[in-house]
C-alpha cells in the first residue's frame, strides 16, 4: 500500500515539474517559430548561439530566484522519491516532504499573483519571441492565462503528492507506534498527543490555514492591491465570496494574504524568542553564579516593561520615522520577539535549574563526562519538551499581539493587509454597523488560528507531562 502511494506521488511530482513547460504546450507554434527554423538552417550558427546565449541570460537573469529555487527543490524531491521507492528508506520520505514543502513555499512567495508570472522564465522567453514580421508574437494576457493554469496545476499536484507521501509516512509510523512495546518517552508522548482530539483538530486547522493562506491566492482572480471603486463595499456574493472592502478589493484574497503575514509573524517571533531566550536562559541556568544573577536582572528589567505601551510607542516611532510598509513588518516581528524572549529565558532557566539537581546529572558528573557532552545528551533533550510547549503557546500570543498592534494602526501598515488591520475598518461607523463582512472575517480568522494553536499547545503539554497519564 505504501509503495503504491509513493509511486503515485512520484508520478505527480514529475507532472508538476512539467507544469513549468505548460506555456509551451499552449503555444505549440513556438517550436515552429524558432526551433525548426534553426534546425533546418543549421548553417545559421550565429542564430543558434544567440538563442543559446539569450536562453542563458533568461535562465539566470529573468527568472526570479524563487522560481529557480522551486525548480531545484522539486528536482531534489524527485530524486529523493526515486531513491526512497528503490530503497524504502523512511528518512528520505521525510526529506522529500520537507523539500516539496520548501518548493511550494518558494513558489508561493514568487507567484503572489498571476500578474507577476510574466516575470518568470518562460514568460520572458515567450514575450521576447517575435513573429517573422518582427511583431511580438504573444500578448501578455495570453501568457498570464497560460502560466496561471500552470501555476495552479503545479500547486495542486505538489500538494497532492505531499499528501500521498505524508499518508505513506503516517501509515509506517502508525505501525511502529501502535506496537505498545516500544516505550520511549517520545513515542509515548506522541501516542498521548494523537489521542487528544482537540489537538488533532487544531493541527488540522493550522495545516489547512497554511495551505489556504500561502497557496490560496494562486487560485484567486483578484489582485492584492488593485483598487476598484466600482465594486467597493459589495456584500458577499458569487463574484466575491466574502464581498469587497472600502476600496473595492476582494476580501477573501486579502484575508489570505493577511493570513500569510499573521502566520509568518507568529512563527518568526517565536523562533526569535527561542533563539535568544533559550540561549540566555540555558546559559544562566547552567553556569549559575554571577552570570546567572546578571542575566536574570536583565530579564527582570525586560519583564517589568509594560508590553503594550512600549510596543505602541515603538509603533508610533516607526510611523514617525517613515518606515516603509514593507519594512514595518520586519520591525514588528523584531519588536514583539525582543519583548517576548525574557519569558522563554525564565522558563528554560527554571527547567535547567531543576534538571541540574536531578540525580542522573550527578551520576553523569561522577562518571566524569565532559561539560559539553552533559549538556548535549542529558540536559537538552529534557529541556526540549518545555521549549516546544512554551513556543507553541507563544505563537498564539505573538499572533494576538501583532493583530492588536495592527488594529491600532501601529503594526502592519496599509495597503498591506494583516488580519488586525483589516478589522480597522470599524473606524468607519457605517461599515461597523452595516457591513460586517468587512471586519468580522479577519477577526474570526485570528480567533480560529490562535484557538487551533492553543489546542495543539495544550495537547503537547499534556503529552509531555509525565504526571498526566490516564
Amino acid at each position, binding site marked *: 500500500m505504501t509503495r503504491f502511494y509513493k509511486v503515485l506521488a512520484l508520478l505527480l511530482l514529475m507532472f508538476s515539474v512539467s507544469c513549468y513547460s505548460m506555456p509551451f504546450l499552449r503555444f505549440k507554434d513556438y517550436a515552429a517559430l524558432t526551433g525548426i527554423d534553426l534546425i533546418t538552417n543549421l548553417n545559421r550558427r550565429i542564430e543558434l548561439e544567440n538563442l543559446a546565449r539569450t536562453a542563458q541570460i533568461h535562465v539566470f537573469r529573468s527568472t526570479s530566484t524563487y522560481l529557480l529555487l522551486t525548480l531545484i527543490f522539486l528536482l531534489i524531491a524527485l530524486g529523493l522519491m526515486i531513491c526512497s521507492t528503490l530503497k524504502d528508506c523512511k528518512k528520505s520520505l521525510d526529506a522529500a516532504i520537507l523539500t516539496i514543502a520548501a518548493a511550494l513555499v518558494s513558489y508561493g512567495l514568487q507567484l503572489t499573483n498571476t500578474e507577476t508570472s510574466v516575470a518568470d522564465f518562460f514568460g520572458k522567453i515567450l514575450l521576447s519571441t517575435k513573429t517573422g514580421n518582427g511583431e511580438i508574437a504573444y500578448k501578455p494576457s495570453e501568457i498570464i492565462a497560460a502560466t496561471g493554469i500552470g501555476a495552479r496545476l503545479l500547486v495542486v499536484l505538489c500538494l497532492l503528492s505531499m499528501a500521498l507521501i505524508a499518508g505513506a509516512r503516517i501509515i509506517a509510523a502508525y505501525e511502529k507506534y501502535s506496537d505498545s512495546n516500544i516505550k520511549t518517552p517520545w513515542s509515548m508522548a506522541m501516542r498521548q498527543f494523537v489521542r487528544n482530539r*482537540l489537538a488533532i483538530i487544531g493541527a488540522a486547522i493550522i495545516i489547512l490555514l497554511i495551505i489556504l493562506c500561502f497557496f490560496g491566492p494562486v487560485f484567486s482572480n483578484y489582485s492584492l492591491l488593485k483598487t476598484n471603486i466600482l465594486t467597493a463595499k459589495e456584500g458577499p456574493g458569487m463574484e466575491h465570496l466574502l464581498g469587497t472592502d472600502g476600496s473595492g478589493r476582494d476580501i477573501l484574497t486579502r484575508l489570505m494574504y493577511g493570513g500569510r503575514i499573521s502566520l509568518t509573524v507568529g512563527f518568526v517571533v517565536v523562533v526569535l524568542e527561542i533563539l535568544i531566550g533559550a540561549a540566555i536562559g540555558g546559559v544562566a541556568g547552567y553556569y549559575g553564579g554571577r552570570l546567572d544573577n546578571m542575566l536574570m*536582572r*536583565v530579564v*527582570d*528589567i525586560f*519583564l*517589568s*516593561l*509594560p508590553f*503594550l*505601551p*512600549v510596543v*505602541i*510607542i*515603538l*509603533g*508610533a*516611532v516607526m510611523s*514617525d*520615522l517613515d518606515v516603509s510598509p514593507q519594512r514595518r513588518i520586519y520591525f514588528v516581528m523584531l519588536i514583539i520577539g525582543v519583548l517576548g524572549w525574557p519569558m522563554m529565558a525564565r522558563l528554560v532557566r527554571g527547567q535547567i535549574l531543576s534538571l541540574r539537581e536531578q540525580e542522573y546529572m550527578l551520576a553523569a558528573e561522577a562518571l566524569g563526562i565532559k561539560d559539553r557532552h552533559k549538556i548535549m545528551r542529558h540536559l537538552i533533550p529534557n529541556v526540549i519538551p518545555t521549549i516546544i510547549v512554551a513556543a507553541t503557546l507563544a505563537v*498564539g500570543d505573538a499572533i*494576538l499581539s501583532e*493583530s*492588536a498592534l495592527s*488594529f*491600532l494602526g501601529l503594526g502592519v501598515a496599509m495597503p498591506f493587509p494583516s488580519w*488586525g488591520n483589516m*478589522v480597522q475598518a*470599524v473606524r468607519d461607523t457605517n461599515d*461597523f*454597523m452595516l457591513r*460586517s463582512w468587512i*471586519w*468580522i472575517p479577519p*477577526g*474570526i480568522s*485570528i*480567533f480560529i488560528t*490562535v*484557538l487551533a*494553536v*492553543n*489546542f495543539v499547545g*495544550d495537547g503537547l503539554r499534556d503529552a509531555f507531562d509525565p*504526571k*498526566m497519564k*490516564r
Partner: protein
Amino acid sequence: MWNYIVRRILQMIPIIIGVSLIIFFIITLIPGNFIDARAQGSHMTFEQVNHLKELYGVNEPIHIKYLKWIKGAVKFDFGDSFTHQAPVSKVIDTFVWNSFTIAAIAFLLELLIAIPIGIICATRQYSKLDYFFTIIALVGISLPSFFLGLILIKFFAVDLKILPLAGLDTPGSNYTGFQFLFDRLKHVILPAFVLAFISIGSMMRYTRTAVLEIIRQDYIRTARAKGLSEKVVIYKHALRNALIPIVTLIGLSLPALFAGAIITESIFGIPGIGKIALDAVSKRDYPLLMGFSMFVAVLTLAGNLLSDILYAIVDPRVKLK
C-alpha cells in the same frame, strides 16, 4: 518580614533604573518634538519657538534631560502633561479610577467563576464537563480582546440596542443616586465582561492544574482514610493547598488592575488610563507617556513582591529570609 520587604525594594531599584533608561531611550527615538509640531500651523516666529523650546528644555542633550527627569521622578513628579496641561501624576490619578472600577469588577468575576470551575474540572478530569470548560477556557485565551469587544458592541448595542455604544455615562444625562449607578453599570458591564472573559480561561486552567496535582498527593488519601466527606476533602484540604499557587497569581494581577486595558478602553470609549495613554502616543505627549510607563513598571514589580509575600503568608513551609 519587614526585613525581607525592604531588601526586595532595594533590589527593585536597579531594575527600575534599567526600565527608566529603556523607556527614556525609546521615547527619545521619536523624531521631532511637541513644540515644533504645535508650531507648524501657527504664526509663531522663530524666536518665539526657540524660546518655548528653551523653556521646555527641548534642546538640551539627552543625559541632561534624563537626569532632570529622574530627579523629578523620584519625587513622583513626572513633569506636566502637554495635552492635559496638568502634572502627569494628577492626570494619572484622575483617570486611573475609571480603569480600576472596570478592572476590579472583571477581577472579581474572574475569581468567583474561574476558581470553582477549575476545581470542578479537576475533580472530574476527562469528563464531558471538563472537556466543555477546557474548550471555553481555550476560547477565552484565543479571542482577541478587540474583536470580542466589537462583536459584543455590535450585538448588544447596535442590533439589540439594550446597552449603550460607548463611554462611561450617557452623554447629556444628569442622573443621581440609584439611576446614576444603574446607568454606570450599563456602560461598564460590557468592557468588564470582555476583560473577565479573556482572563478567566487562564485562571481556570491554572487552578485546574494545581488541584489535579494536589489530589494526587498522599495527604489527600489520608484525609479520605479519616472518613471525611469528599466535599471536605476537596474544599478544605485540597483547596487550602491550591490557594498557594492561586494566591501568587492574584498578586501578579495587581498591575492589570491599575494599568488599564488600552485596547478595551479605546473600543468602548472609556476614559481610563489606558485610553489616555494611547491618546498620548498619538499626540506625542511624552511626559505623560514616560510617567505612565514607569507607573506600570513599578506596579509590575510591586505585583511580583505582593505575590511573593502572599505566598509566604499562605504556605507555612516558606519563611522569607
